[in-house]
């Protein structure tokens, strides 16, 4: 029973990681690509880690998987913010479908 739940959780995680990768390929510019990369990949990894917790139970490896989840959340969000800001200051153009850019005046 536990193994069944673990397999389902890990499969869902892998599926969302695949969605994230498709997003990386299909979306037009770095800003939109990072959206797919941070969201799908973070939650996909969380799902895999919860699957690991279900498989090993409370103790050793399972607990470490649980502790990794908040760390993953904080580092992924901070890294995404740093990458977006760095890309903008480096001068990467927004996609031509972009409708609004409030940040340009603030940076000048």
């Amino acid at each position, binding site marked *: 029973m536990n193994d069944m739940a673990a397999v389902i959780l890990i499969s869902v995680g892998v599926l*969302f990681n695949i*969605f*994230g990768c*498709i*997003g990386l390929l*299909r*979306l*037009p*510019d770095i*800003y*939109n690509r*990072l*959206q*797919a990369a*941070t*969201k*799908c990949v*973070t*939650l996909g990894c969380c799902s895999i880690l919860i699957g690991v917790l279900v498989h090993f139970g409370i*103790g*050793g490896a399972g*607990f*470490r998987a*649980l*502790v990794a989840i908040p760390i993953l*959340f*904080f580092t992924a*969000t*901070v890294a*995404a*913010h740093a990458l*977006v*800001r760095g890309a*903008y200051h480096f001068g990467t153009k*927004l*996609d031509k*479908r*972009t*409708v*609004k*850019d*409030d*940040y340009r005046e*603030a940076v000048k």
Partner: protein
Amino acid sequence: MRYLAIFILSMIFWLLITFRFTIPNITAGAVASAITAAIFGRYYFHNVYKFLQPRRWYWFTVYLVTFIWACIMANFDVAYRVLHPAMPIRPGIVKITTTLRSEFARTLLANSITMTPGTITVDIIGDEIFVHWIYIRSDDPARYTKMVTGRFEEYIKKFAE
């Protein structure tokens, strides 16, 4: 007092990741936590007594549940946009104004915005947060501020300020 809070938190963290309750392990953890507290103690938690108020813990739980729900919705939202043949995106960077004062609360708000559907925080300048949005649903600043921050701002104000 501040140093003690950091020490206890890092000690709990150490015990969780090692998960062995032997004397040498606990001693090593105590030494590592003491060094951490000595270096980083002055940066965090200006008022430790906030930890002891049950009201804040209640709002923290409410915030956590809302946050996890928003994360799951964000996933399905991005998956839908990526898999849709026509890719329904309307991206842009919008400016929203926050009323939160403390640095800790602002960091939490920025992280929450990054994990919620379709938005990613670019920068904070003064009171203004710049947010890249994958599908801008409104052109009116008051309305989109409400959409982006959602209920996070009031919850964070209740437990972190």
